């Protein structure tokens, strides 16, 4: 089974981050939510492995609760 990559994996993280922001520019919160949903589905299909997606979901969920605890 492939695992979720948890180490830096993008040669130019800044550029990818900027691309994501650019895609959302000028969008209402609602439009952005829809864009994010489409993006998640497109990426999920590209990943193609339910276990990896589950690991990603877990990581995303945990990060939020850790944040909240810090507050």
């Amino acid at each position: 089974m492939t695992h979720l990559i948890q180490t830096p994996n993008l040669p130019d993280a800044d550029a990818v981050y900027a691309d994501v922001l650019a895609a959302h520019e000028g969008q209402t919160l609602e439009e952005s939510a829809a864009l994010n949903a489409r993006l998640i589905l497109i990426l999920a299909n590209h990943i193609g492995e339910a276990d990896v997606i589950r690991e990603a979901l877990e990581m995303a969920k945990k990060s939020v609760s850790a944040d909240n605890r810090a507050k």
Partner: protein
Amino acid sequence: MTSPFAQDLYPYKRHPDQDASRAAHHPVTIVGAGPVGLALAIDLAQRNIPTLVLDDNSRVSTGSRAICFAKRTLEIADRLGVGEALVSKGVQWNLGKVFSGERKVYEFNLAPEDGHKNPAFINLQQYYLEIALVGRLRALQAEGAPVDLRGENRVSTPVAHADHVALTVETPDGFYSLKTDWLIACDGANSPIRNRMGLNFKGRVFEDNFLIADVTMQADFPTERWFWFDPPFNPGQSALLHKQPDGVWRIDLQLGWDIDREAEMDPERVRDRVAQMLGPDVAFDLEWVSIYTFQCRRMERLRHGRVLFAGDAAHQVSPFGARGANSGLQDADNLGWKLAAVVEGGAPENLLDSYDFERAQAADENLLNSTRSTDFITPKSQISHVFRDAVLDLAKNHAFARPFVNSGRLSQPTTYDGSCLNTVDGLPGAPPRTRPGAPCPDARLEDGYLLDALGHRFFLLALNCDPPAATGLPHLSPQITDDIRSRYLGSASSALYLIRPDQHVAARWPSATVQAVKNALSCAKGHPP
């Protein structure tokens, strides 16, 4: 002509049991002559097990009920002797269209896999299924099979004892008593038997109403399934259009939770809605109109001593995916041979616990699938709405997103993984779809079809090997056609399959000794190893 559903199909007739001084005894009593009770009665009658069916009315079910019957159901119906009648009356279709708002998102063609006798599914009014089953039951009875169906016999109070169940039955002539070794409750979603026994039935109510209308149309609408998300004629909700025999169409309109039921049922309002849906030039008549809410729930256990539950009495699903009657018939398929084996005395009672294990597993699978469909069709939170719409937006231009579109996943038979009746898979390289616990896929033989040849007894299927002598089991050694190879051999060069009376795989090996076959057979009959 009277409508098929308006006939008194099994009118009340006084029976000598009602005048007996002591309660008459019946080995197996089935409560409810719905599709499940009738199918089980026929299966038992074909096995020569004395069976009595009691129903509180004398007619087939009316109103809008099941219309979509899947292949496995048709295969079971074949074994019960009514399959061909259903298929010849039913409507077959392959093309489905999905719409979102004003536009078509995509269409799909459900071309079935080759080499099966039966189509992937048919559309047929539930009452035609019930009429066929009642006809078959009566034919068996006329041939001398020990089966009876009594109309207007309402079972009112079951009292369970260690070695029998005592029943009180209410008829137009008053009450009478019966004793039965086994009581099978096939008395529908509101199961009075379940309620009287105080058994729970927990699950989830979907806070939504659906207007279901069956309409007759003269128009030449194509034989396709059309599903709308958020159509202009039903904004924010879903809609479904599906063809049945006799020029009848099923219309299914989601209404939402807070509605005025009475206003929605007003024929004028319904006609108006349907006219908007079908377009101004289509003439139609309303046959049935009703409003449903749906639940997804099951009993914790399907066996309570000498009382067993099957069909809607045991589990209830939303109709998306057509899993109600389809799974109920598989309950009957699973229970029939087991009950026969116990009643005849050859098998231990705990064979019936495997019914609970296997069919509860199936119920969970069906609940999972129908809950997922319902969540997609009627998103319950803002964000699930966002994802649903994201899928529909993407699906229009991108094939990858289409598998996410869930307007119902058609009922598939369950593979009983982990059942104690299975012998560990002993055939390396063979296809997973025929592993122990799986339903046998049909295959074309040189002459006819595999499932017809298997029938309803334990059976050996020997491929490129000789079945061991002296197992006492019938066997089949068909030519190795492409279907047989891809479904039963895979990369194995030979195979011996032990197949259960319900046509599920019990064990498989490259070849086997008499002892190995006998051990697997004993295990599949519920004997401890």
